């Protein structure tokens, strides 16, 4: 089923592979409900979390996923500044190889770094976010969460609001949702829309009210606050006025629409607190599902012949 030793992105996956991961994830979700939440398939394996960007959530999620599968985990957090001073990425990769690791989970601010590592190493490389390229496990957990509420993906209207240009989550989500037959709408100011993105088979709205109409799923993205100083929009207040998810706007979506956010949230910037904590929000469910999905990914890659 799984041919690649790596999970570099959703781009590279077939719908069958995506469903295979999601099916396995439900098995792991059951494990997480047990008293003893640990199973042995990765016993004796070592997972290296190689994080070149600060990210507590994703790192902890991968760490716990690996530990639940009985793997040993090494956390390698490297600030960009120390890389600039010293070791090259290649050296770091070779060090990890020499340590005898079986998996490397990589987060890096530069797109393509997981692909670079995958060429350099014969162990499994899992992309935990590379620049503005992809964040495949986030998309998988988003799919898993949507499926648990909507039972299917095909035909759903999924609206993604926010900074699409710089968002690896948005890209992975677009690939994942469109591959499984959802209708994806991107809602953002034209300054935050990537070039020629319409070729991905999505609809684009610069008006949030238009874009939210009859949506089944509403996803807001985290807005990096420094985008304002780069001139993508004039002020946070204006951004919230135009694109903030409010109760009034959410009413335009379907009554049973769910609200998602990859976290961490800027309350009052991209999403109103009342919505984030409201009955339609499944944001915490996403976190739990992230664990199950990452266990499934580690488990499935362990079974790929290298």
């Amino acid at each position, binding site marked *: 089923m799984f041919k690649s030793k790596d999970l570099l992105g959703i781009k590279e996956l077939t719908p069958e592979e995506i469903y295979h991961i999601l099916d396995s994830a439900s098995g792991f979700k059951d494990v997480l409900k047990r008293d003893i939440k640990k199973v042995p398939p990765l016993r004796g394996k070592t997972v290296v979390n190689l994080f070149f960007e600060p990210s507590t959530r994703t790192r902890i999620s991968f760490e716990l996923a690996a530990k639940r599968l009985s793997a040993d985990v090494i956390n390698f957090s490297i600030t960009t500044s120390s890389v600039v001073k010293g070791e090259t990425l290649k050296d770091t990769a070779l060090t990890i190889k020499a340590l005898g690791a079986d998996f490397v989970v990589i987060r890096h601010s530069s797109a393509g770094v997981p692909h670079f590592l995958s060429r350099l190493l014969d162990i499994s490389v899992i992309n935990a976010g590379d620049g503005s390229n992809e964040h495949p496990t986030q998309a998988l957990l988003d799919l898993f969460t949507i499926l648990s509420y909507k039972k299917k993906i095909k035909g759903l209207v999924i609206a993604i609001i926010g900074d699409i240009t710089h968002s690896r989550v948005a890209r992975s989500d677009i690939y994942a949702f469109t591959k499984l037959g959802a209708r994806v709408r991107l809602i953002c100011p034209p300054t935050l829309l990537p070039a020629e993105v319409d070729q991905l088979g999505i609809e684009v709205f610069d008006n949030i009210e238009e874009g939210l109409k009859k949506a089944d799923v509403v996803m807001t993205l985290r807005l990096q606050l420094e985008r304002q100083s780069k001139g993508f929009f004039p002020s946070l207040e204006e951004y919230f006025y135009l694109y903030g998810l409010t109760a009034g706007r959410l009413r335009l979506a379907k009554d049973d629409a769910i609200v998602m956010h990859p976290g961490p949230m800027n309350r009052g910037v991209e999403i109103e607190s009342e919505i984030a904590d409201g009955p339609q929000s499944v944001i915490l469910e996403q976190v739990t599902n992230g664990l199950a999905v990452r266990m499934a990914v580690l488990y*499935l890659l362990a079974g790929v012949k290298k």
Partner: protein
Amino acid sequence: MSKKILDNNDINRAIRRMAHEIVEKNKGIENLCLVGIQKGGVILAKRLSSEIEAIENCVIDVGALDITFYRDDLNTKEEQPVVKKTDIPCTINNKTVVLVDDVLFTGRSIRAAMDALIDFGRPAHIQLAVLIDRGHRELPIRSDYVGKNIPTSFNDSIEVFIDEEGKKDKVVLIKGQS
């Protein structure tokens, strides 16, 4: 080359006999539960439980156990096994758990099943019921209840077809290349 070695009636008789043996050995069904190993053992466990319930005229707990995470061949298989449902409906602490599987071969699945089971609690006893014992054990494991002993060569394979109603049951031996 394949050969039908058990038919519908053979299988029904074997299950009925095993049900009686389970009740007899455990002196009733108090504190007893059946757990079928995914995938072949699950229906067999249900069939056994109906027989036992008919004999004893009461209800018995039946569960399903997926052993995928506990297998020792994750890196050697060509394809990853698909993770299936695990459903243990009752506490197994201090119970007698009868593990149920369709075919007993190397014993590795049973080893994995015992590891998996123990993650759910501490049973008083674990017993093993299998429809077919085809030999070639690689671990020190034996079954307490056997439907039928079938001598095979290592490269043969045994396919068990059973469903809930017991209408189209059969067991087929496929001769392997040696």
